[in-house]
């Protein structure tokens, strides 16, 4: 233990792992949230081990920490560290990831807290064993999509011809109506395409969650997010799941309609660990 007696420490908790697995695997020493403190396994009982690190009270007491999480540079570094630790754990253990910023003053408090949820945590370990999470986001360049659709939809083609025959005044309004129709039709088609891909992925998943689409100011991309789904899959069916994704990616590219499918993973089961 490297904490000095004049520097009181708090306990940052990253995750829970099964004690049985903790005993079976060798523990690789790694830096904690605030080096030189290291990541440690804290055996809470014969079933649950908490993955923790010591953090200095002078930086992590409630008031100070509240100020720190408002500093984006600080938060970014710690959030990524939290995630990196989770990824490393996930390679060897069944992991229940805790939300960023779970901190205890004493190990006893954590042990007491866990006693209440012991059976529940056990159930989640069983549920998450040999599973992983994948995230699929579908982006669409809407202008390109609409153009592509206008070129292919027969109904649009027919309406365009009708408009050409109208007087200039009427033509203006009818064209506006057609644009509106195209936009609505495109939205409907995009949703149908996304849902069809989702259904295919669901067939190879254990569980799934459809998330909110993020705005462009969040993603920083030029195209629009139209689907944001997370899928819990069995680790041994990963290839099958990714084959479906790759097949859909290929199809999207071939149609040239401005659809792109982004896949990230394997993630620890952040979305499927609720107690």
């Amino acid at each position, binding site marked *: 233990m490297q904490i000095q007696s004049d520097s009181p420490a*708090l306990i940052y*908790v990253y995750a*829970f792992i099964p004690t049985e697995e903790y005993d079976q695997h060798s523990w690789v020493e790694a830096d904690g949230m605030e080096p030189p403190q290291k990541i440690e396994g804290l055996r809470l009982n014969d079933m649950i081990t908490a993955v923790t690190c010591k953090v200095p009270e002078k930086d*992590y*007491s*409630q008031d100070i*920490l*509240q100020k720190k*999480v*408002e500093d*984006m*540079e600080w*938060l*970014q570094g710690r*959030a*990524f560290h*939290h*995630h990196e630790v*989770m*990824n490393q754990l996930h390679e060897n253990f069944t992991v*229940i*990831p*805790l*939300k*960023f*910023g*779970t*901190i*205890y*003053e*004493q190990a006893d*408090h954590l042990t007491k*807290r*866990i006693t209440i*949820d012991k059976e529940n945590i056990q159930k989640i370990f069983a549920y998450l064993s040999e599973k992983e999470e994948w*995230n699929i986001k579908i982006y669409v360049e809407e202008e390109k999509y609409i153009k592509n659709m206008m070129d292919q939809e027969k109904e649009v083609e027919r309406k365009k011809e009708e408009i050409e025959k109208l007087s200039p005044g009427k033509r203006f309004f009818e064209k506006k109506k057609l644009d509106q129709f195209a936009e609505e039709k495109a939205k409907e088609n995009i949703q149908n395409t996304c849902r069809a891909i989702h259904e295919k992925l669901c067939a190879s998943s254990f569980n799934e969650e459809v998330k909110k689409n*993020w*705005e462009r*100011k*969040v*993603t*920083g*991309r030029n195209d629009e997010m139209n689907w944001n789904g997370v899928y819990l899959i069995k680790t041994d069916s990963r290839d099958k799941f*990714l084959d479906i*994704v*790759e097949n859909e990616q290929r199809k999207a590219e071939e149609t040239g309609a401005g659809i792109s499918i*982004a*896949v*990230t*993973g*394997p*993630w620890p089961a*952040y*979305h499927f*660990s*609720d*107690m």
Partner: protein
Amino acid sequence: MAAYQHSTPMNNTSNLVDVLETVLDKGVVIAGDIKINLADVELLTIKIRLLVASVDKAKEMGIDWWEHDSHYSSGAARVQEENEELWQRIRQLEERQGTNAGNRGTVLSDTNAKGESTNE
């Protein structure tokens, strides 16, 4: 195999969003002894993305003082040497013209002021 977020560098903005939206918003919530309020995750993500984007953008625009500043890089020593040589040359030219190097102090303090403000 498809692209994995593991191997993606941290400053890739789309990966950044993925990680932040998950780590700051998801995971099991158990009541700790220390309680913090995280701002809305969407807002946090935008703020952090802007922070990262500004570093990338600055590099794109050739603003990379931290790679040359003596506090940050050994390459700065070379720049400093060049600087000295140039000042030497200016002094020689000024002496030849019979002028003095009175402006040097002003120019130097300007440079310093700029360096300090960028450092913040």
